[in-house]
């Protein structure tokens, strides 16, 4: 089946962190997406020049007509700069999707280990939100590495979920604060001691982050075939 380009309208836009803008897009999906999937976005200049990029969906699939994207402004970002500075509510954007095999469905169960670096948390947010609605009994743990508290995407929501959802645990790793730490062998051991052996692990972030985190997980005995990776900037 072809993946057709469709027009989506920006229904809402708000700052999520100092570098990340949340955009809600009204879409006409012909089929539901799975939590963790992404869309391709295409922008067209008046002379016909086009630029395409991929963005993960942050919202759960239970709200199919409206998807949230989190666009991080990259230095000199051709497309992210447009979304940060120019895009406004009411604008139409071309997109197509959903795309990708980096996805979790409630029927797959758990324990579910989610490891995110920076804006790599976005597809994991969709999974967590879907899990809370559809399978709150599935044990889940989010290990989320961010530079500073201000850079944590959906911070209030994640902290609230950590406090109120009995089967969900949030572990934040802040790397650029006093006493900050990166994800290391000890932290992975702590994660596995709490969660037990994960049935499904999803790792998303920059290329070096995902490479390092996946290697640590394999070293700790997590079966490689149960680990899915998604790398941004690639």
């Amino acid at each position, binding site marked *: 089946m072809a993946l057709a380009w469709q027009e989506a309208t920006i229904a809402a836009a708000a700052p999520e962190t100092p570098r990340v803008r949340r955009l809600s897009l009204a879409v006409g999906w012909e089929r539901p997406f799975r939590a963790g999937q992404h869309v391709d976005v295409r922008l*067209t200049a*008046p002379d016909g020049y086009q630029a395409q990029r991929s963005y993960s969906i942050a919202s759960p699939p239970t709200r199919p007509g409206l998807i949230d994207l989190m666009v991080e402004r990259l230095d000199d970002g051709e497309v992210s700069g447009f979304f940060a500075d120019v895009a406004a509510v009411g604008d139409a954007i071309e997109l197509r999707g959903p795309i990708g095999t980096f996805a979790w469905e409630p029927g797959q169960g758990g324990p579910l280990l989610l490891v995110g670096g920076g804006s790599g948390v976005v597809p994991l947010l969709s999974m967590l939100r879907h899990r809370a609605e559809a399978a709150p009994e599935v044990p889940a743990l989010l290990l989320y590495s961010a530079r500073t508290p201000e850079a944590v995407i959906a911070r209030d929501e994640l902290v609230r979920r950590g406090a109120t959802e009995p089967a969900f645990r949030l572990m934040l790793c802040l790397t650029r604060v006093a006493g900050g730490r990166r994800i290391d062998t000890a932290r992975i051991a702590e994660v596995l001691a709490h969660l037990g052996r994960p049935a499904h692990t999803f790792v998303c972030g920059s290329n070096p982050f995902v490479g390092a985190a996946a290697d640590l997980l394999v070293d700790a005995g997590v079966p*490689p075939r149960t680990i899915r990776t998604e790398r941004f900037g690639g």
Partner: protein
Amino acid sequence: MVTRGFTGRRPTRPDAERLPPGQYLTEDFPVLQLGPTPRIDLARWRFTIRQGAKPLASWSWEEFQALPRTRWTGDIHCVTKWSKFDTAWEGVGIDDLLAAAGIAAPTAYLLAEGYDDYTTNVPVADLTGGKAMVATAYAGAPIPPDHGGPARLLVPHLYFWKSAKWVKGLRFTQADEAGFWEQRGYHMSGDPWREQRFTDD
């Protein structure tokens, strides 16, 4: 559809002519893979050509190093939209591989198979005639594991998912059988100049 307020940042004219539709130029070498990087022991590495289940030829790492070498420098294009120019690879051309095996291609199609059980389908016509190799070196050094080392398929005129990482063999098939991504909505052919990203593009 023109996007309100989007002007874009155009590549220079020479760069633009080398970029297939929808692609942008990167200086990095991004990584795209499904899971962790597999750990491959060269002492146990083998490359095997099969027809269905039947092995036709097989090489150890040492034997593979003794095959004739091919070099290629040029541009590569990933379906996730990045393109990288002037990448330099070295390995064993598919023509030389078939010659070393003493066979002609028994069918018109095959699946490249990886140590991570990844598969991707490529017609033989896209591999022979100097179009593809099993690469073992990138930029003059062994291919890093993240980029598919010790050996990856290199089919640079197709989107790079066809250039299977950690390749362990080629399996000839009677028909054009969909590989891993092709079963999941990606195009059977994957020509970047025709922007064949997804099924029916």
